C-alpha cells in the first residue's frame, strides 16, 4: 500500500464548489465586500474615491503596525506594548527635534526608542522564556509611564516645520472631479435614491498611506518569500520541533519583536508628525485594535497561520465600519459597541465555518 505516490492538485471542481471554496478560504473577504457594498448603498458620501482616501489615511497607523503584529502572532506570541510605543516614540521624536533642531535626528530617536523596547521584549521572551503576554503587559505600562515622564504629561509641540512633512504631505498632487455615488433619503417611497455623478475633490495620496502600502508589500514578501518568514510560521506552528530542526528560534523571535518595536515607533513618529506634536496619551488601546484587525484577517492567535492579504482585509473591515459610522454620525460611545460586535461576529462566523467542515 505504501508504494503508490500521488502528487499534484486535486482534480477540477465545478463553479459552485469554487464559490463555496472562496467563502471557505477567504470568508472575511466576502464579509468586507458585503460591508463595502452595504455602506455604499446606504451611507451618504461613502462611495466616493475621496472618502476612500480618507479611510486609508484613518487606518494607516493600525495598518502599519498590523504588519509586524502579523509576524508576532504568526510566531505564536503577542505584543501588547505597541500602543505605548507609539506614544513614546512620538514624544521622543518631538523632544529630540526641539532639542537639536534636526528632523532626521528626531525621527531616528523615535525609531531607536521603539526598536529598543522591541529588543527588550524579544530578549526577555525568547532568552529568558517569560510569557509574551506578561512581558509586553509590563513593558506596555513601563513605556507609557516613560512617555508621561519625558513629556511631563503634556503634549510637546514641534516647532520645526520640516517635521510635519512625514505625516502631512501627499504625493502625487492630484485634484479634479471624481466619480461618486450619492445616496439621498426621502420621506416617501422610494425611500432611498441613488445617483451617479462626479464631485470635486483632492485625491493626492498622503504619505502615511504610501508608507502603509509599502509596509504591506514589504512584510508580505518577508513573510511569504523569505526563510525568515517561513521560519516564523514554523515556530508558531511548533516551537520545539523548529528548534530541534535547527531553526534559530530565539534569534528569530528577538528579530520579530525588534521589528515590531521599530515599526510601532515609526507609526508613532508619523502620528506625531500628523499632529505636529508628541502626545503621551496617544495610542491607548491601539494594541487591541491592531490585534483585532489581524484576527479579522484570519490570523491564528495560537500561531502558525496568517497571511498579509488577510491582514489587509481585516484592517479594511475595521476601517470601513468605522468610516461608515463616522459618516452616519454615530457617537463614539456606540462605535465601541459596534467594533466589538463586529469582531465577535467575525470570529463566530469563522467558528461556524470550521464546525460545518468537520
Amino acid at each position, binding site marked *: *500500500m505504501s508504494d503508490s505516490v500521488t502528487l499534484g492538485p486535486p482534480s477540477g471542481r465545478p463553479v459552485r464548489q469554487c464559490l463555496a471554496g472562496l467563502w471557505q478560504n477567504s470568508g472575511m473577504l466576502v464579509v468586507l465586500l458585503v460591508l463595502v457594498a452595504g455602506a455604499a448603498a446606504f451611507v451618504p458620501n461613502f462611495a466616493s474615491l475621496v472618502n476612500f482616501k480618507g479611510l486609508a489615511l484613518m487606518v494607516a497607523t493600525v495598518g502599519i503596525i498590523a504588519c509586524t503584529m502579523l509576524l508576532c502572532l504568526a510566531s505564536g506570541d503577542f505584543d501588547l506594548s505597541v500602543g505605548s510605543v507609539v506614544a513614546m516614540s512620538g514624544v521622543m521624536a518631538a523632544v529630540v527635534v526641539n532639542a537639536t533642531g534636526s528632523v532626521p535626528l528626531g525621527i531616528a530617536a523615535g525609531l531607536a526608542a521603539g526598536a529598543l523596547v522591541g529588543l527588550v521584549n524579544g530578549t526577555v521572551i525568547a532568552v529568558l522564556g517569560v510569557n509574551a503576554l506578561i512581558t509586553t503587559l509590563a513593558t506596555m505600562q513601563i513605556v507609557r509611564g516613560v512617555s508621561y515622564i519625558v513629556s511631563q504629561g503634556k503634549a510637546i509641540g514641534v516647532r520645526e516645520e520640516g517635521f510635519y512633512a512625514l505625516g502631512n504631505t501627499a504625493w502625487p498632487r492630484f485634484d479634479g472631479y471624481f466619480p461618486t455615488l450619492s445616496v439621498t433619503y426621502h420621506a416617501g417611497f422610494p425611500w432611498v435614491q441613488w445617483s451617479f455623478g462626479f464631485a470635486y475633490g483632492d485625491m493626492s495620496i498622503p504619505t502615511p498611506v504610501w508608507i502603509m502600502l509599502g509596509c504591506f508589500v514589504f512584510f508580505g514578501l518577508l513573510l511569504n518569500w523569505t526563510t525568515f518568514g517561513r521560519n516564523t510560521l514554523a515556530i508558531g506552528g511548533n516551537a520545539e520541533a523548529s528548534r530541534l530542526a535547527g531553526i534559530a528560534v530565539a534569534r528569530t523571535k528577538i528579530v520579530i519583536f525588534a521589528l515590531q518595536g521599530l515599526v510601532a515607533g515609526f507609526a508613532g513618529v508619523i502620528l506625531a508628525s500628523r499632529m505636529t506634536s508628541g502626545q503621551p496619551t496617544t495610542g491607548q488601546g491601539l494594541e487591541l485594535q491592531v490585534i483585532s484587525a489581524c484576527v479579522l484577517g484570519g490570523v491564528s492567535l495560537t500561531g502558525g497561520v496568517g497571511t498579509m492579504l488577510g491582514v489587509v482585509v481585516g484592517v479594511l473591515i475595521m476601517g470601513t465600519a468605522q468610516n461608515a459610522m463616522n459618516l452616519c454620525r454615530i457617537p463614539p460611545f456606540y462605535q465601541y459597541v459596534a467594533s466589538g460586535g463586529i469582531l465577535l461576529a467575525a470570529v463566530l462566523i469563522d467558528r461556524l465555518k470550521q464546525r460545518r467542515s468537520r
Partner: protein
Amino acid sequence: MTDPGACYLEFRGVSKSFPGVRALEDVTFGVREGSVHALVGENGAGKSTLLKVLSGVYRPDAGALLLAGQPQTFRGAAEALHAGVAVIYQELHLVPPLSVAENLYLGHLPSRLGWVRGRRLQEDARARLAALGEAIDPRATVRSLSIGQRQMIEIAKALARDAKVIAFDEPTSSLSRREADRLFDVIRRLRDDGRVILYVSHRLEEVFGVCDAATVLRDGRHVRTFPTLEGVDRDTLVRAMVGRAISDVFHHEPCPPGAVALEVEGLMGPGLARPASFTLREGEVVGCFGLVGAGRTELVRLIYGAARATTGTVTVGGRPVRIRGPRDAIRAGLVACPEDRKKEGIIPIRSVLENLNLSRRRHLSTLGFIINERRERASARRQVEQLSIKTPSLAQHIMNLSGGNQQKVVLARWLGGQVKVLLLDEPTRGIDVGAKSEIYAIIHDLARRGVAVLVISSELPEVLGISDRLLVMREGVIAASLERGEATAEKVLSLALPVAPEPKREASA
C-alpha cells in the same frame, strides 16, 4: 447477562471522507455483548476515525451506528457518553491539577444546591477505584500519578458514567509490562460484567492475549472479522492487515564499519546517573535498548544539544564540537529525529512541503534568504518519491498524514545533507508494519553511504534485527555494548532490568 450471541454495537456501512482522504468506506461489523473485540490495521487504516465516529466526534457521511439495534446519531461526545459509549484515547483526557475524585466526576460532581459535596465525592471515588482493585487516594492530584494509574482513572470515569461500550485506543503504548497486565485484568473483568469492549492496538500479542474477536481494517475498508480468535494465528492476522505476508521485516546487511564518526566522552547531564561514553563508526547501525526511564532519550538529547550537558565532550568525525544547541550539532553533521513526533518532530498545521524543507531552507533559497519555490518543490517531490511518502499533495497539512508518513517526512529532512551521524529516537513507534520495514530500509541505505546511525527502540526484536552493535541502558547508565553475534534477547533484557530486585507487587485489593 443477556444473550451472548447478540451484537450490542453495530457499524453498518459507515463511510467518512475528509478533503483528499477517504478515511472510512462502507465499514460493517458488530460487537457482541460481553466480549473484547480487537480493531486492528496498519496506521491510516481508519481505526482512529472509526473510534471518533463511535464517540460522536465525527458524524459519518453515510451509514449508521447502532446500539442494541437502535440507530444512533451523536451530535458530539457528550451525547455519545450519555448513550453509554466511552472512548479512552491514547492521550488521556484528564485534568492534571485537579484531584482524582474531581476528575472521576468531572461534569457531574455530586452537589447540593450547587455546592460540591466533598465527602460524598471522595467516598464515591474511593469506592469506584476499589471496585477496579486500585488503592489510589481520591484526594491526590492526577498530576502526581503514573500513566498506568491515570488510565485506571479514565476507566473508572467511564464506569462512573455507566458506560456500556468502552473503547480503548492503544491503551498500553505508554504502560509498563506490569501496568499493562493490570489493565488486562480489568478489561477481562469488564467483559465478564457484560460490557462491550472495543480494543485498538498495534501489539498483536495483546490482541491474542485479551481479545475474543477481531476486525481488520485496511485503507478505510473492512477486510475481515474474526468472530473468534481461536485457531487464528498471528500470520493470518498480519496477512489480513497488510494484504501480504511479511516474512522478513528486518533485513540486515552488515557494513564494514569505517572510521570513528561520533565519539561521546564523559557526557553527563539530567537523566543520566553516570557519565556516558561510547563511539559510533561510519556505516554502523547501533541499537540502543533500555526500559522506559533508562535514560536513552535523555542521552540522545544531551548529545544533540536539545538539553544542556553539564560535562563531557562530543567529537564528530575527529573534530570536537561545542554543542550549545541543536544548531551547533546540525552544523557539525550530527542530526536527530526526536521521540515524540507530534510534539517535537512536525509542525502539524503546516504543509508537507514546509515540513520537508524545514531544516534546509537556507540551502534551498536564493541568496540565503529568498524562498525559491521551484527548488523547494523539486527537492520535496524528490524526497516524496524516494521515500514513497503517501500524501495527496505537497500542500497537504502534515497532520493529515498517517504516523508512518509523518515519520518519513521527519527523516527526509536529514537525507541528502552533510549528515555524518543520525540519532533516531523510537523511529517506528506507532507505525504500521509496512512503513516500519521502509524505515529500516532507509536506515540501512544511510549506513551504506557511511552514515553512523544510533537507533533507540523499546522493541527488542527490532533492535536485535537491525543493529550491528547494541548499547544497553539501565537506570541512567550505559550498562553494556554487545556485538551482533553476542546479543540475544535474554541477555539484553537481563542487562536492561534493574539490578536490585523490584519492590514486590502489592497484593491487589
